[in-house]
């Protein structure tokens, strides 16, 4: 009688929990199943009791890495492992599971308990947030990118020439395309030309086109990129790399909106919006006399700066997720994400090649990783080596210790420049200074202000 009352009490307690809970005996048969488990799995308690746990639970991990089996084998609990279950109608439900061993009064193992939490809502919220953090294929939750997202529709609406500044691989063409796609010219063509990749003569014929007979082998008229982009948008990448002679020709197009194809007698009028981009410091080039000042002012009407990835590290996990989703789709794979070790290595890397480099790293990992999580050994060897040297986030560190390591790493990367380190860490310089004052907040010497050095590019 007492036992029945105790069992009833236990059932009431279990049913009052919002997470699904079930227990199994030594033969993996279900011995208890709470109300939340019924709701999440869609299986009634009466049907579940006495059945094999994998027939009831139908989780993605049942076959390959059953958490309960692992806990019973090792004695160690599994905590918040992300998997999915399949309901009877084939719907996938993302859940997180935790397990523990059940013992009797004498300490003998009598079974196991598994608790699981429905992550469907979390997943939906995540998707909603992801939507807020993306803009026309550009991904970023960092303040700099959020400001850019706010600015882009207004920039696109205007007809002004735009100058996009940013290091290689920061996504300048992506922004240019976004401007075009959001603009009233979206139905017309977006034509891109990399000015740095072509010698002057070729660039001239590519940009302006030529008439038949303009030179040997010019048998027919060839329209240039300017003609192709008529009423659309012309994206001139690496405009800082064009020669002085070419700068003069470009200036005429921007000033008078006319150009002359090679061999033509009459100038041709063109209605085109120019979006230019460069990885160079055009201010500096103008000062040094290597870029025409008048062209600079023609180009620099609206100026957008794309921050390098090292200045917006908070975007790295979001970008990784985006690349994993895309490569999973393209390569028909089922890679879930990154292990903590691999993520720590990628978060610590400086990315001289910016987003493009991160994309290549994930693509490299996709070649080596068949399924599941991307581990450090799937990353390029150079990164693995760097990870071994710099991996200092051992387990058992307090939050303050991890923060101190992160601050010191940032200070080291910026050679003691606190303002730059604070920018990278996404905090005010005063906040960083306050954290440095706290005991254990900094490594002596790392925070000492030093002579500033300019970063190339």
């Amino acid at each position, binding site marked *: 009688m007492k036992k029945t009352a105790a069992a009833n009490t236990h059932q009431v307690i279990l049913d009052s929990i919002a997470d699904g809970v079930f227990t199994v005996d030594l033969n993996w048969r279900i011995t208890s199943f709470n109300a939340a488990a019924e709701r999440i799995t*869609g299986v009634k308690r009466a049907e579940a009791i006495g059945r094999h746990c994998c027939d*009831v639970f139908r989780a*993605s991990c049942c076959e390959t890495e059953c958490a309960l089996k692992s806990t019973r084998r090792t004695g160690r609990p599994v905590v918040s492992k992300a998997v999915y279950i399949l309901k009877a109608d*084939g719907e996938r439900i993302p859940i997180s599971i935790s397990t523990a061993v059940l013992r009797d009064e004498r300490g003998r193992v009598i079974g196991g308990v598994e608790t699981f939490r429905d992550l469907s809502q979390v997943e939906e919220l995540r998707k909603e947030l992801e939507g807020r953090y993306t803009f026309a294929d550009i991904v970023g939750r960092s303040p700099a990118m959020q400001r850019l997202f706010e600015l882009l529709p207004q920039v696109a609406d205007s007809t002004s020439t735009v100058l996009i500044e940013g290091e290689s691989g920061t996504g300048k063409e992506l922004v240019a395309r976004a401007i075009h796609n959001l603009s009233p010219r979206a139905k017309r063509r977006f034509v891109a030309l990399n000015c740095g990749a072509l010698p002057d003569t070729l660039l001239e014929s590519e940009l302006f086109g030529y008439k038949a007979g303009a030179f040997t082998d010019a048998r027919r008229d060839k329209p240039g990129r300017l003609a192709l982009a008529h009423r659309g948008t012309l994206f001139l990448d690496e405009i800082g790399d064009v020669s002085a002679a070419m700068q003069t020709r470009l200036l005429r197009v921007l000033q008078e909106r006319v150009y002359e194809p090679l061999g033509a007698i009459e100038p041709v009028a063109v209605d085109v919006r120019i979006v230019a981009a460069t990885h160079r410091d055009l201010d500096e080039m103008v000062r040094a006399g290597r870029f025409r000042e008048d062209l600079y002012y023609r180009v620099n009407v609206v100026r957008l700066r794309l921050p390098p990835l090292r200045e917006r590290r908070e975007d790295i996990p979001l970008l990784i997720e985006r690349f994993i989703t895309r490569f999973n789709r393209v390569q028909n794979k089922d890679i879930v994400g990154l292990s903590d070790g691999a993520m720590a290595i990628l978060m610590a890397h400086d990315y001289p090649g910016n987003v493009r480099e991160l994309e290549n790293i994930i693509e490299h990992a996709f070649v080596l990783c068949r399924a599941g999580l991307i581990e450090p050994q799937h990353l390029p060897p150079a990164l693995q080596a760097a990870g071994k040297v710099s991996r200092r986030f051992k387990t058992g560190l307090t939050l303050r210790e991890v923060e101190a390591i992160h601050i010191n790493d940032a200070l080291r990367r910026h050679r003691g420049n606190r303002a730059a380190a604070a920018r990278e860490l996404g905090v005010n310089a005063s906040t960083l200074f306050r954290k440095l004052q706290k005991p254990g907040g900094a490594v002596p010497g790392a925070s000492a202000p030093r002579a500033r050095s300019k970063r190339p590019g």
Partner: protein
Amino acid sequence: MIVAIPTLEERVSPVFDVARCVMVVELDGEREVRRQTLALHSPDPTRRVAALTEQAVNVLICGAVSRPLEALLSAAGVRVISQTCGPVEDVLRGFIAGRLSDGAFLMPGCCGGRRQCRRGGPGLRCRPGGPRRRRARRRNADGTGPKAAGA
């Protein structure tokens, strides 16, 4: 007829999407002609389907299966009898004897009107609260509705 059953430790694998091993049995009427075991390495749904179609599998008897994978199987002409559980040999015998609808072979939570895909066509879905019952086709009191047989 060629029948495939994903297996896990001599039982039907609970989730076909991640099953690693599948038993392929060729039947001539009720007689077993050939049997082999295939390894399914790829988690990629299209490769899973291709692995079955390469063996000319007509029927897949499996546990749970996700909707996209089920749709691919149906499109490839594989009839899916999902929500099946139990020891593989019992399930195979049950299939030959036409007894797979017995409760013993149904996964818990399956309503009984479980998914049984027609060749190349959409399957029946497991519905929460049991299978959808057909509304009785009777004439209404006011004389409207379907005509009586032979009318």
